[in-house]
């Protein structure tokens, strides 16, 4: 009897299901991804055990850098525009249509109102350096521009919720100044943005139930 022929098997694997899977996952991640917007400063958030996610609509964010500089922004572009128009009227500054458009895409008001026109004329690549040199939105009682911006923003969108986003190393006096400004406007309810940390009470509960 002749030797049984060993069937030659192809070494190639059908990769179609794998590709299907990969592209399914890609589609999922592409649809769910939300890129972090370019903010005036990068802050390292402190941890807390809070669990409520930060809302992403109707949000007024007060960003406080490590050096105590304050920046303010709202989440939607229409409010940004309305806010700028109202503030411009109050300060007797006229902004062109182009400048308004440029302002509406900014995540935060990065400079004092007097410097805003100059800032908007800058190329995007030069902006970061300018923000570093600038002193942010003034909060001192002599010229409280944070209050001005906030008032106009809240008038054009009364549903705004307030969130304070500060670096963990920010000195307390800077925070106090901002909270004072909030209190003046009767904004007594606000959120502190933090990153999530495990709740030690829950940890204890699970470990004791396991043992």
């Amino acid at each position, binding site marked *: 009897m002749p030797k049984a022929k060993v069937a030659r098997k192809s070494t*190639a694997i059908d*990769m*179609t299901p*794998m*590709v299907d899977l*990969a*592209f399914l*996952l*890609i589609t999922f*991640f*592409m649809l*769910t*991804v*939300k*890129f*972090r917007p370019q903010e005036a400063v990068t802050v390292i*958030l*402190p*941890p*807390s*055990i*809070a*669990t*409520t*996610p*930060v*809302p992403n609509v109707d949000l007024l964010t007060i960003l*406080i850098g490590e050096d105590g500089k304050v920046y303010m922004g709202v989440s939607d572009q229409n409010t940004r525009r309305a806010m700028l128009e109202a503030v411009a009227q109050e300060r007797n500054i006229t902004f062109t249509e182009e400048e308004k458009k440029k302002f509406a895409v900014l995540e935060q008001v990065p400079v004092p109102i007097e410097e805003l026109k100059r800032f908007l004329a800058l190329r995007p690549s030069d902006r970061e350096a300018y923000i570093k040199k600038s002193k942010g939105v003034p909060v001192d009682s002599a010229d409280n521009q944070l209050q001005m911006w906030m008032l106009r923003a809240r008038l054009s969108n009364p549903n705004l919720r307030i*969130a304070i*986003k*500060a*670096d*963990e*190393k*920010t*000195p*307390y*006096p*800077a*925070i*106090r100044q901002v*909270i004072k400004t*909030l*209190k*003046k406007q*009767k904004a*007594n*309810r*606000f*959120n*502190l*943005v*933090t*990153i*999530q*940390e495990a*709740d*030690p*009470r829950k940890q204890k509960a699970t470990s004791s139930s396991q043992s």
Partner: protein
Amino acid sequence: MAAEVGGGDSGKKKGKKKGRKKKANPRIDMTPMVDLGFLLLTFFVLTTTMSTPVAMPVVVPAEKQEEQKTEQEKISEEKVLFLYLTGKDRIYWYRGRENNEVKLNYTTYGDKGVREVIYKEREKVKRSGLFDLSKDPDPMIVMIKLSDDASYRNMVDILDEMNITDQKKYMLLDMEKADIEIVQDYEKNMNLPSSIEKSLANLAKSGAS
């Protein structure tokens, strides 16, 4: 394995002429596509799994009401736990007075530090018998006083500690002149900061172990 696409028909015709059937291979080498797919997948996975921020709600008393409160209510000092948050992540605390004098203690953040202090002092207040527990099952009030050297992290940490220990009654205040003097006196009399640094190091060690 070569990539042949749509070559089936022409292959058959040629095959008929020569009288031989040539099998067309309808398979495509998908390796580069898979490579690309997984590259993109990796990119999106890495960009999305950033830690999502959470919001810690804070309600501060309206300015007017605060003034009224201090006029109306007189709180017994026995049930008030004062926490002084100063620079270098230090906490000084006291509750009540001994011979009419404030005696400060120090602690740090975390479960072995301020959390234990809150739990212990709460029990002491409850057991003191000075307060009617049927009216108010948890009479202790925490006064948090922040110095100008304190950081935002300190503030969030202590508010977090209030949530963890279920301390409902607390106030967030600034350090006044008298408070600053108390702390300065204490730091002087204790030959600080060397001795406190040691104790804090010990606390941190016991916390870590």
